[in-house]
């Protein structure tokens, strides 16, 4: 691994401290009560971590994308929900930051995210299109006065919608646009109203607090990203989403592995003949599974960083690149729960019990959300189509 810049190192140290001192100690109550990890988010705000991906010229941390991804991993080791909130916020903010150039509104918006440590939620999933990010039903409606625009979107899942300051929303460009002619709009608190339409009592990722809402908003027309939507998706949003998610899933799986290792060590201490206990062999098998996940996540990040450093970022627009980052999501979302289940196999009943130090139930439940956050079958269908024409994959 390359030597980290000082700013990145300090950022990461602060994230590790929040993870260990705040997110970890509250993880069980956040999970049990399906409540927002408010303590951890307050601590992250105090470290100014919500603006890490914003350039320093706009008052942000100017932290490298790699360090932010690593931060998702570290938070994931202590509290999956905190890590998911942190990751989703940065998916939105990093995407805006990569496409803000030339828009005075977006640049001053990013400056306000940094100054006030605003939390940004995502409103992509929609009733009627589900997890198909490439289609929208709700449309941006220009106001008759020419200075406002409005929309209403039926959103079946918005994580931390009730806690968010601002919303990042996918919409049809106009009322007469096709479903695949989309824009991204940013709505700030005070410009939108949320009507909650459901409850949130899920299997895992309980602290993300993600019920359904109807979103009604009135914004200014310049509160949209000018870059064509498909380009934003390919160049930024999809790879960034898949990289940050997979880092936190790796974090959760790593903690499950660590708990299994601690269990085996405790068992070994109790044995008299000095030979590794039989369960140690299972731990070794589990390490092999974890290594596969680590390798996939690390290479996905490295390829994205390399392609992003090219001035035109053109490589990210190719189908080969789409396939690459889709596969990262599919592989990591399937491998992370596999590692957690393996850890439960090692720890046995001590892993199954919620109140044991070797408990991995939360880890297993949290990572089971991975394959449905943008359903893997949906991604496979896209890939299947691209594979008909892409060559050197």
């Amino acid at each position: 691994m390359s030597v980290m810049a000082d700013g990145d190192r300090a950022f990461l140290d602060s994230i590790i401290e929040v993870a260990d001192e705040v997110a970890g100690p509250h993880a069980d109550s956040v999970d049990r009560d399906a409540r927002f990890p408010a303590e951890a988010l307050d601590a992250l705000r105090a470290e100014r971590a919500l603006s890490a991906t914003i350039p320093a010229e706009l008052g942000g941390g100017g932290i490298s994308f790699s360090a932010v991804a690593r931060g998702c991993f570290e938070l994931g080791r202590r509290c999956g929900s905190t890590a998911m909130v942190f990751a989703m916020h940065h998916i939105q903010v990093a995407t805006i930051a990569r496409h803000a150039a030339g828009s005075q509104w977006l640049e001053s918006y990013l400056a306000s995210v940094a100054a006030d440590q605003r939390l940004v939620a995502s409103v992509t999933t929609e009733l009627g299109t589900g997890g198909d990010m490439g289609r929208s039903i709700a449309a941006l409606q220009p106001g008759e006065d020419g200075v406002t625009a409005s929309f209403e979107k039926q959103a079946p899942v918005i994580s931390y919608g009730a806690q968010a300051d601002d919303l990042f929303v996918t919409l049809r460009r106009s009322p007469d646009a096709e479903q695949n002619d989309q824009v991204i709009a940013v709505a700030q608190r005070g410009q939108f109203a949320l009507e909650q339409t459901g409850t949130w009592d899920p299997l895992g990722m309980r602290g993300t607090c993600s019920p359904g809402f109807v979103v009604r908003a009135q914004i200014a027309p310049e509160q949209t990203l000018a870059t064509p939507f498909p380009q934003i998706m390919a160049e930024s949003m999809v790879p960034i989403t898949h990289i940050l998610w997979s880092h936190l899933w790796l974090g959760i799986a790593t903690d499950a592995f660590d708990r299994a290792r601690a269990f085996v060590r405790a068992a070994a201490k109790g044995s008299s003949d000095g030979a590794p206990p039989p369960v140690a062999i299972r731990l070794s098998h589990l390490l092999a599974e974890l290594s596969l996940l680590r390798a996939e996540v690390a290479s996905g990040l490295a390829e994205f960083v390399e392609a992003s450093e090219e001035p035109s970022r053109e490589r990210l627009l190719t189908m080969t690149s789409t396939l690459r980052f889709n596969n990262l999501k599919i592989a990591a979302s399937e491998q992370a729960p596999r590692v957690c289940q393996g850890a439960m196999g090692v720890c046995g009943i001590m892993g199954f019990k919620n109140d044991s130090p070797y408990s991995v139930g939360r880890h297993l439940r949290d990572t089971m959300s991975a394959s449905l956050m943008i359903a893997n079958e949906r991604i496979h269908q896209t890939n299947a189509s691209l594979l008909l024409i892409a060559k050197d994959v």
Partner: protein
Amino acid sequence: MTDDIRQLIKEFGRLPVDVDTLATDADLYQAGMSSHASVNLMLAIEDHFDVEFPDRMLTRGVFESIDAIAAALTELGVQVPA
């Protein structure tokens, strides 16, 4: 060449609009071409002109309009018949 491309778009682009009236620089995606239809169109173009688009050319932009497709084919050495 643009006539052939237009014909292939008619067959494979599954556009909700009349392809004959599309300007050669009109955005096909904005005209309603889905990603899946665009892949079918690319396959049909490779087949018809007997070319293979290298991976670096397999981006959305290259298939955005009739003009863009024609430019890509010219880059690959497809001759415009006299």
